[in-house]
């Protein structure tokens, strides 16, 4: 009897306590649907960049400028790069999505949005827990060749990429579809080895399209398999409060160029070659105290292309050997002097410019410099204003009678980069 009574008390108290809980415990977040997935929304950020440009040459001449042997000017005015017009420029909007996919993968996507068109700049997944210090990345991504190539535009220290990088990899950098495998050595100092297998279609250095002259004498087939291989080793160590990062990279792939060669009218030119680009980089970041940071960064790139060029005129197709050796580097010093201020200097130089066609060395300009200085004010990490002064002596244009002229110019730009949303932190 006593047992039943005590059991009853327990039972009642359970019911009342449950009832009581029902009365008091209100859910903290009332969602509209029991299937709401708001907590699984990826990190989304949007960064936009616009500028005001003042330049001592007019837009039309600017659009015709090129660097002989290095950089062609755009035929139709497209792909002119950032800050190309005097006055206001809307450079880009960059929409970034990132999330953990599941216990095994992360997914990262960057949509590059320009005024007229949009594209997937990067979309890739990476592994989360491969053993022994390995990580695999697959999709479309900026190659980790060298130092600056894999950095997004909003993270650059100057308004545009260094000259040697845009010359060898184009305005969009070495950005390809493929896979990457990296390995971090289990050593006391940082040692990273990486290899990439990429499609091999880069506007400035690599290509795989076939070409054939209309008569069918020359017929070079397209390469359908991935044709670009990149490898690098990076290492770092600290000396007191200075972190030193060094890297060596190599990219090897095929080069194809078809300039009106496959067409039936006019004269045409084509190139079938193999290109190797070597890179060496050095970064020293010194943090003397909690606020100031002094960063020296430099990269040297050397490109060698060997193969055959084909020249088609109304009479015949001439095949000749083609050998090109080019090099360039940049060196920059950026100082964060206060909580909100940074200033920087950069020196760009395109050094070697030897192009031998049929064993004859062409007379191309070499040792072409560009100087840049910038001052940055960042109210917070989400907004940044940059004043940049550039003096460029690397550009040439053809006069109406076909004579090549050097055209140095000076440019002042005020650049504004603003970001919202959840954007991941940047690496070193």
């Amino acid at each position, binding site marked *: 009897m006593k047992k039943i009574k005590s059991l009853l008390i327990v039972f009642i108290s359970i019911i009342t306590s449950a009832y009581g809980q029902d009365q008091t415990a209100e859910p903290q977040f009332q969602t509209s649907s029991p299937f709401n997935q708001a907590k699984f929304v990826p990190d989304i950020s949007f960064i936009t960049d616009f500028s005001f440009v003042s330049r001592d040459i007019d837009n039309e001449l600017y659009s015709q400028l090129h660097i002989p042997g290095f950089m062609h000017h755009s035929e139709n005015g497209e792909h002119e790069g950032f800050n190309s017009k005097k006055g206001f420029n809307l450079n880009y909007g960059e929409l970034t999505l990132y999330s953990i996919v599941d216990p095994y993968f992360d997914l990262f996507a960057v949509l590059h949005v320009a005024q007229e068109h949009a594209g997937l700049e990067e979309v890739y997944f990476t592994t989360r827990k491969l053993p022994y210090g390995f990580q695999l990345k697959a999709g479309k991504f900026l190659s980790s060749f060298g130092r600056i190539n894999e950095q997004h535009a909003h993270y650059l220290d100057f308004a545009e990429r260094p000259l040697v990088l845009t010359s060898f990899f184009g305005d969009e950098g070495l950005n390809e579809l493929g896979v990457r495998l990296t390995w971090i050595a289990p050593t006391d100092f*940082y040692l990273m080895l990486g290899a990439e297998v990429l499609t091999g279609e880069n506007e400035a250095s690599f290509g795989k399209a076939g070409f054939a002259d209309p008569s069918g004498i020359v017929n070079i087939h397209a390469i359908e398999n991935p044709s670009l291989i990149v490898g690098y080793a990076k290492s*770092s160590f600290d000396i007191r409060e200075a972190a030193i990062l060094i890297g060596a990279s190599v990219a090897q792939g095929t080069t194809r160029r078809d300039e009106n060669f496959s067409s039936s009218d006019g004269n045409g030119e084509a190139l079938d070659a193999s290109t190797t680009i070597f890179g060496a980089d050095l970064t020293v970041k010194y*943090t003397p105290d909690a606020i100031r940071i002094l960063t020296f960064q430099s990269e040297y790139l050397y490109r060698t292309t060997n193969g055959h060029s084909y020249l088609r005129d109304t009479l015949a197709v001439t095949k000749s050997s083609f050998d090109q050796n080019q090099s360039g580097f940049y060196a920059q010093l950026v100082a964060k002097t206060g*909580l909100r201020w940074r200033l920087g200097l950069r020196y760009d130089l395109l050094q070697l410019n030897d192009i031998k066609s049929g064993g004859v060395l062409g007379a191309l300009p070499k040792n072409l410099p560009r100087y840049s200085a910038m001052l940055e004010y960042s109210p917070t990490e989400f907004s940044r204003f940059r004043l940049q002064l550039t003096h460029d002596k690397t550009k040439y244009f053809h006069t109406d009678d076909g004579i090549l002229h050097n055209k140095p110019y000076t440019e002042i730009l005020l650049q504004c980069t603003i970001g919202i949303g959840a954007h991941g932190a940047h690496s070193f």
Partner: protein
Amino acid sequence: MKKIFMFITFLLTLASITYSQLNVVTTYPYIADIVQRVGKEKVQVTALARGDYNPHVIVPKPSYIAKLRKADLLIINGAQLEIGWLPPILKQANNGTIQPGEKGFLDLASRVHLIEVPKNVSREMGDVHPEGNPHFCLSPDNIPVIATAIAQKLSELDPANASAYEANKTAFLKLWEQKASQWQKAMEPLKGTKVIEYHKIFDYFIQHFGLSLAGTVEPLPGIPPTTKHVAEVEQTITRDRIRFILQDVYNPKDASQYLAQRTGAKLLVLPHDVGAVKEAADIIALFDEIVRRITQ
């Protein structure tokens, strides 16, 4: 002969000890010191950041990646204090065992009660932490909670030494209790004292010892002082007869110095982490030094 044999045995034991040591990496030095006290010779511990730098903006050196690559356990402060520098290097370390959610990862913020959790967040409010104020290590009440979480985690990863971790923790908590009552006693006369601080970094300390916060020199978290705001703070100091301006070691001190000079309030530069000042050599010395600087 026997001596040589003994020496070899000694070397072998030494080798096996170093080999079996758990490799623990912590983001900040205060965590490393607690791990050292709980793990003693069974662990090898490294802190990534320096204690005298701004904990929000640490330069993510590649050498940290090398340390994370070899770690068995990563212990972070959490509550987004590391969000500006740790995620990319943790990702690049290619070490699956210490990623968030894995066994070799411990987020201390998940174990303590966070104060100042904002109801709404907007970047208009400056650098606010949506999960609450992340500087919880400055409440003496939170250190035993942290030590317990660390002891649990070490035991989970290295069950063979669980009793040693438990014993070390118990000894540390006993010592901590003694020290905490000393600090309590020393701080007693200051109860109710109104203070100004530069950044909201000493809030847990202020709350624990019954001080009261009357304002910050920064207009918003992470936003440097403006003339208008400093003038307002000056008025507050004069009106409420505020005695102390608490300043961390890493932010510029000119605004606080100006206020101290104008109002006669005392500028106290206080350590916020182990190693922030020379005297704060470990977690006990950190509190000793804060209390000494306030009470002297």
